[in-house]
């Protein structure tokens, strides 16, 4: 192969019409093959997917009491209303993408077994042996756990779940856009 190629180059020093045409032919074949390869891979990337749109409307803000956590399971979103305002969590485990489930008690089994659980950086709450129960999320796939505000505290999850944008739509309902990720300080005040 390499020897053939070298001969091709050496021949090209005294290029004949025949060798020029052979080279041009092979070059054309190579380019056409590369284009065909690109096309066959590009073909597999859908331009439109008809999946559920990332933005959707939830209930009006008044439907969520202060201090409440509401799971909208069809959309894989959580609406939290804390004293500072509203925020929404993308309910997708940051480990490998399963859907964590809400539990009123996500900590006591660990705490009573002696596992140290970090203080929740958002709420400042900590589960201790004296009061071991904190609400949160547990992922059914590999056991990651999150505080109610999406901060991970146990299992393989590498980081907190994403928080996404919330606003009030013109009709007064909450408009949640799962494609816009916001930082932890985000709150919607109503």
């Amino acid at each position: 192969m390499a020897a053939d190629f070298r001969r091709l180059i050496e021949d090209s020093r005294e290029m004949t019409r025949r060798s020029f045409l052979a080279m041009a032919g092979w070059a054309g074949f190579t380019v056409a093959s590369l284009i065909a390869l690109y096309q066959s891979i590009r073909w597999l990337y859908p331009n439109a997917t008809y999946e559920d749109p990332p933005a959707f409307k939830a209930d009006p803000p008044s439907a969520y009491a202060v201090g409440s956590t509401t799971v909208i399971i069809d959309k894989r979103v959580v609406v939290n209303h804390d004293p500072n305002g509203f925020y929404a969590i993308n309910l997708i485990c940051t480990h490998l993408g399963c859907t964590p489930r809400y539990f009123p008690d996500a900590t006591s089994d660990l705490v009573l077994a002696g596992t140290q659980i970090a203080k929740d950086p958002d709420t400042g709450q900590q589960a201790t042996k004296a009061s071991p129960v904190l609400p949160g999320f547990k992922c059914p796939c590999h056991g990651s756990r999150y505080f109610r505000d999406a901060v991970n505290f146990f299992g393989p999850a590498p980081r907190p779940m994403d928080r996404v944008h919330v606003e009030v739509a013109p009709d007064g309902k909450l408009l949640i856009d799962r494609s816009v990720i916001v930082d932890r300080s985000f709150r919607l005040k109503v």
Partner: protein
Amino acid sequence: MSVIRAAIDEMFSIVGQMVTSVFRHGLPLTDKIAARTALTNFVLHIHPVRVRRSWIRMSYTLCLGGLSFFLFIVLTVTGLYLMFYYVPSTNHAYQDMRDLQFVVTFGGLIRNMHRWAAHAMVITVWLHMARVFLTGAYKKPREFNWGVGTLLLLITLLLSFTGYLLPWDQLSIWAVTVGTNMAKYAPIAGPYTRYLLIGGRVVGDNALLRFYVLHVVGLPLAGFLLMVVHFWRVRKDGFSGGL
């Protein structure tokens, strides 16, 4: 009477001609005829003309390659049966799987044959690879066939993975969510690979269809072609067993 006798004779000669048109050398009564029969018959020529008893000693090969191929045939046939009742769409797949299990006559038998043969094939292919490794059968001049074998292992595992999604129950959806999210962790190409694999951002209709097409056409076809090469090389490179 003689008319009937003539008819029977005629029938025998027609059948005889049909048989000899397939097997040209008559009954394999001698080694020479047997060898010629094997050489000139498409199905039989997959076998070497001569095989030494020691080459295929059960305690050496454990018949693992043959078992893997046998299971592949079982999976092809039962898979074909399943395709008559299974529609790869998120609206139908789970219900079709339930129907196969509980409504279709012998559906449970066929589905379970497919399921257990699939599990067994993964095991026998791994064990076959372990046997080849432990007996040193991958060494010169059989390195190329070891390479083909690793590709066949990969295809076996991908068949197992793609088939796992098809029942479309919670276990399969989240297993594939997890599996394709692992692909996403790869540097640079990761997210593109996942999008290409499942044809979107979540495991949905596109993912089911893609996995189905790969499971019933793409991967078996690639596997079949590699098996042809694999078996051919086993013959041509020679058996690794005793002399």
